[in-house]
């Protein structure tokens, strides 16, 4: 039962400081047009490092457990 992770970047808040990108152990992220972008979401291991390293509340990682049907309140909230 593999977990999936949804990474959300708030471009309005992201300042492109590169910290999340540098720290991501799986190179999930990249800098494009001075903003962080998710380039390989499937590699994400949900370590939350990017979230903890972001000084601007601009990146969030959320675990989506497989059994939760898409469209449920829990995932919809985002």
């Amino acid at each position, binding site marked *: 039962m593999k977990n999936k992770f949804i990474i959300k970047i708030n471009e309005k808040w992201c300042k492109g400081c590169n910290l999340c990108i540098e720290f991501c152990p799986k190179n999930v992220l990249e800098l494009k047009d001075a903003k962080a972008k998710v380039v390989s979401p499937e590699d994400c291991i949900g370590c939350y490092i990017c979230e*903890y390293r972001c000084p*601007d*509340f601009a990146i969030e990682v959320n675990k989506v457990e497989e059994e939760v049907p898409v469209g449920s309140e829990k995932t919809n909230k985002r």
Partner: protein
Amino acid sequence: MKTELAKKYLRLEKLPTLWCSGCGHGLILSSLLRALYLLNIEKDKVAMVSGIGCSGRTPGYVDVHTLHTTHGRAIPFATGIKLMKPEFYVLAVMGDGDCAAIGGNHFIHAARRNIDITAIVYNNGIYGMTGGQVSPTTPYGAYASTAPYGQLEEPFDIVELALGAGATFVARSSIDEIPKLDRLIADGIKHKGFSVIDVITICPITFGRRNKLGEDPMMNLRWVQDITVPMKKAKDMSKEELKGKWITGIFRDEDKPNLIDLYLELNKKLKHSMVDESSKEGVEDVRRQDET
């Protein structure tokens, strides 16, 4: 995820912050919010007070009672609040200049008094807001706009200073120790008495650029990794090796009567035992006045 939940303490409409890209102050703020979240603290029971500086922008982003005072004076204002609202969690967020240069006296006196305030020092070793002048924590030899030939003064060790002044909870961490920092701040908030959390952070713009780290946040963060040593590791290092390093960890966590409780106790005692006689008769104050 935690960050997301902690965002309930944010004034969302005020973001993005005005801090520079990669400024370490944002990392401290996010830790701080997670600490509030961890402790499940009611917004209406928190007052956050700052002085002036880039660090001083913090309260503007937090949805509690916020007060952006004058440079260096966060603690006195916080003291007034705490004494009249003993049930409040009162946080003083301060820059290194704010806390230890102009505000140094208030800092040591709050420590001495053991007043139940949590002091969080955004310690980037520089005056960020005014453009990179030396601060009392600028490392010896570092360059700054007012130290064009390198700083000649030794920096304060905020931890030593707080200990010397009598603070009852004293810790140091850095923006490289997140999420450990969340816990530390939470511990500080929970602590009954004056607590100090010295957080080593970065100002790529005014410090990094002048000190061969450039404006790249990552380079600056690596420097923080370089100059900080966890307490455990430090135990096995020589004095020489520790030169120029900041040890991180909890340095003191002591249970001692705090000022508010002492006041409340006194007031309770007086309420049951005495009424000022002079207010009845005008006698006592004549006598008293004649004595001085």
